[in-house]
């Protein structure tokens, strides 16, 4: 393998590693927020509870894809 190919391969690998870290490197919410809740059929009512607990507030529901 030529030196040029080696450099290209190394850069590509670095980009992939950084992308993996960026998109899949742990799931820590900001320290001022509650921990990320992983919803299951058993605990999905937690969203409803959070929503209703803030009945005195205007509430936003935002649905997003993580990538």
């Amino acid at each position: 393998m030529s030196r040029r190919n080696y450099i290209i391969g190394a850069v590509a690998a670095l980009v992939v590693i950084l992308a993996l870290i960026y998109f899949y490197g742990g799931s820590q919410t900001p320290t001022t927020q509650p921990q990320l809740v992983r919803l299951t059929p058993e605990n999905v009512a937690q969203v409803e509870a959070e929503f209703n607990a803030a009945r005195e507030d205007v509430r936003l529901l935002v649905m997003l894809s993580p990538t």
Partner: protein
Amino acid sequence: MICLQGASATQQVLQAFIGRPVRVLIVWEPVLPTDWGAPSTTTLKRITDTRAAQFWDGGRLISHQLGEHDRRGIVWDYVAVYPVGASWNQQPPNPLYEGRPVIQVIEPLRNAITRALEGQMGVAEFAQDKYFEGKTNCQGRIPNDAGQKSASGKFEWLPAQPFWATRPKSSGFRQGGSGSVRNF
């Protein structure tokens, strides 16, 4: 990535309402082929507002509660505003405002929050809302007569095709923002 821009844009909108009684529920869900798992720390930090709670909905349970029946009906890149006093009983209540994709409805979203905080989402404003006319909401319902009251004095909603089902395939799922405002 447009979805992530929507997250950042949501954070910017929230900064305009610091100190106001606003609560935010962020639901991350797998939609794209790259959505292998829960959002990363970097992604979660796009929403730094202390009034936010974030969820990973791997089974799209909330999307189903909002009306998802098949792949085409996934509710995502979506934002809804709910008024003070509304309750979630088994399924979410009717929102005052809803729109998507998030990045393209920032201005109407900001307006809707402002009016919700001021308690001004009355019939008169509802009738004049420029974002309302000709729009459908996420559950595929449209007003029976844009800007006009029904005989009962309230706006009624009629079944219609969801807006994502009517989009041209070539235009992609993410193009063109739309939103609607409801009388509550």
